[in-house]
C-alpha cells in the first residue's frame, strides 16, 4: 500500500508525542480502541480553565502508520482551539488532510473518538469541581 506524503511525514516526525499528568484537574485523557483490534490511541488535552483554550495536547498510539498520523495530526489541530471548537473536528477532515484510503478511514474515526473522549474527561473533571465548589 502506498502512503501519502503527509502520512509518511507524521509517521517519521510524529508531533506532540508524550503524556500529560492524568491527575491534573485541567488535563482530559481519552483512551480509545483495543489491542486485539490492532489500534489503541491515547490523547490528552490540557485546558486553560479561565479561557477554555487547549494549551497543550499529547498522544501515544499503538496502531498502523495511518493511526499514528491521524492522532499526530489531531494533536496539532487541537493546539490553540477552544474546547467547543475542538469538538467540531470531524474524522472526514482528517481523511481529507492525510488522503487516507477507504480501508484506513477507521483510523480517522478513532482519532475523532479520542478527541471527544479527552474533552469529555476534562468536562467531567471540571463539572465535578464546580459541584464541589457549589457545595462548599
Amino acid at each position, binding site marked *: 500500500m502506498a*502512503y501519502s506524503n503527509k502520512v509518511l511525514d507524521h*509517521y517519521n516526525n*510524529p508531533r506532540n*508525542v508524550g*503524556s500529560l499528568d492524568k491527575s491534573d484537574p485541567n488535563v482530559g485523557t481519552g*483512551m*480509545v*480502541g*483495543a*489491542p*486485539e*483490534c*490492532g*489500534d*489503541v*490511541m*491515547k490523547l490528552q488535552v490540557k485546558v486553560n480553565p479561565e479561557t477554555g483554550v487547549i494549551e497543550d495536547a499529547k498522544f*501515544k*498510539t*499503538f*496502531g*498502523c*502508520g495511518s*493511526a*499514528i498520523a491521524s492522532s499526530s495530526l489531531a494533536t496539532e489541530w487541537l493546539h490553540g482551539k477552544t474546547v467547543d471548537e475542538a469538538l467540531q473536528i470531524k474524522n472526514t477532515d482528517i481523511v481529507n488532510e492525510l488522503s487516507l484510503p477507504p*480501508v484506513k478511514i*477507521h483510523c480517522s*474515526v*478513532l482519532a475523532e*473518538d479520542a478527541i471527544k473522549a479527552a474533552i469529555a474527561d476534562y468536562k467531567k473533571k471540571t463539572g465535578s469541581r464546580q459541584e464541589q465548589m457549589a457545595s462548599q
Partner: protein
Amino acid sequence: MKLPIYMDNHATSPMDPRVFEAMRPYFTEIFGNSASRNHSFGWQAEEAVEKSRKQIADLIGATPKEIVFTSGATESNNLAIKGVAQMYAEKGNHIITAATEHKAVLDTCKHLEKDGIRVTYLPVQTNGLVDLDALKDAITDKTILITIMYANNEIGVLQPIAEIGKLCKSKGVLLHTDATQAVGKVPVNVIKDNIDLLSLTGHKIYGPKGAGALYVRRKSPRVQVTAQMDGGGHERGMRSGTLNVPGIVGLGEACAICNAEMAQESKRMSYLRDKLKGKLEKELDEVYVNGTMDSRLPNNLNISFAYVEGESLLMGINDIAVSSGSACTSATLEPSYVLKALGAGDDLAHSSIRFGLGRFNTEEEVDYVANKVIDVVKKLRELSPLYEMAKEGVDLSKVQWAAH
C-alpha cells in the same frame, strides 16, 4: 550491501542463476512439445522432462513415475484432495486437516464440504503442532484422507509427519502433505514418512513460478486421484495439458541443487536465523517467538514485538521486505488465522513479523535487519500507550477496552 533487502522467502524466492541457465535453451531452441512422439523436437523435450522428474523424485525419495507435473502447489493440493475425495468416494467421505493449513488446502476442503464431504479441522497446540492423540481420535471408519502440511508457511513449524504417516498406514488412511515450504529445506522422504501424496512447487526453492508437482504413490498402496481437468490425458491421465517444459526443467534443476546443497545450506540458514533471533532478544524486551523452535524450518523466524503494531513496524523498515500477521496488512482486515490458532491472542498476531531467510541472504544483511528492527521497535514503543501502561505495571488483559 544492496537495499532493499529481500527476507520474505516463504512468499517466494529469487531464482538461482544456475536454474535460469538450465532453463534458457528450452524457450527458443528446444521448444518441442514433450508429447510429440514422432520427431526429435518432441523427444528432446521429453528427455528434459524425464530428467526433471528424476531430479524431483531423488529429492523426496520417490521414483520418477510417481511425479505428476502441475502449475504449482495450489494446483497440486487441489488435485490431491479433490482427486482422492472423488476417487475414493465409495470408501468414505471424511477428511481430516488442521486449522493452520494454507488456504489452498483449507479452501479446497471447504469446497468439498459443499459436495457432501465431512471435514475435521483439527486445532493445533500452542506450539503450532498437531496433537497426535487428537488426530488419532478424529479418525473414523469413513476417513479416507488426512492432509497435514509438512512445514507451516507463516511460523515454519514442522509437523510430526513421520508419526502421522505411521498412524495413517496403520489405519489404512491416505496421507497427503503440502510440503511446499519443507522440500529442499529439510530432508523429506516419502518412503520413510509413509507419505501417499505430496505437493511441492518451484518458486519456493529458487526455481520458477508456475511449475510444481504432485507426488502420487504407486506402490503399497497404489494411489489414484481423479483428474480435475479434462484433456489429452497427460501425466498418466491425472493432469492434462501440454507440459511447461522450461518451467519443469527449472523445477528439476532447483531440486537437484537443493539435494546437493541442503545439508550445508540449512546449517548456514539456522546460523543466520539464530543470530537474528539472538540480537533481537538481547536488545528488546517482550519479544515472543511464535511456534516452537524445537521443530522448525532453519530459515524461519516469526516473532511478535509486544505493544508494537506490525504494519507500523513494516513502515519503519521499508528497505527490508518481510511480512506481518497484522490485520492491517491483510485484505480482510483480520489478523493471521495461523497465529490466532496458536491461541496467543489477537494482540500478538497484530505485532508479528515473519522473517524468511534465503539462499542469497548474507550475514551483513542479517546484521542490518536486526539493527534496523531494533531501532524502529524502540521508536514505536516510545509512541505506544500500551508499552507505557505495561511499564507502569498495568495488566493490559484486565483493562476494559472499547472494541471497535
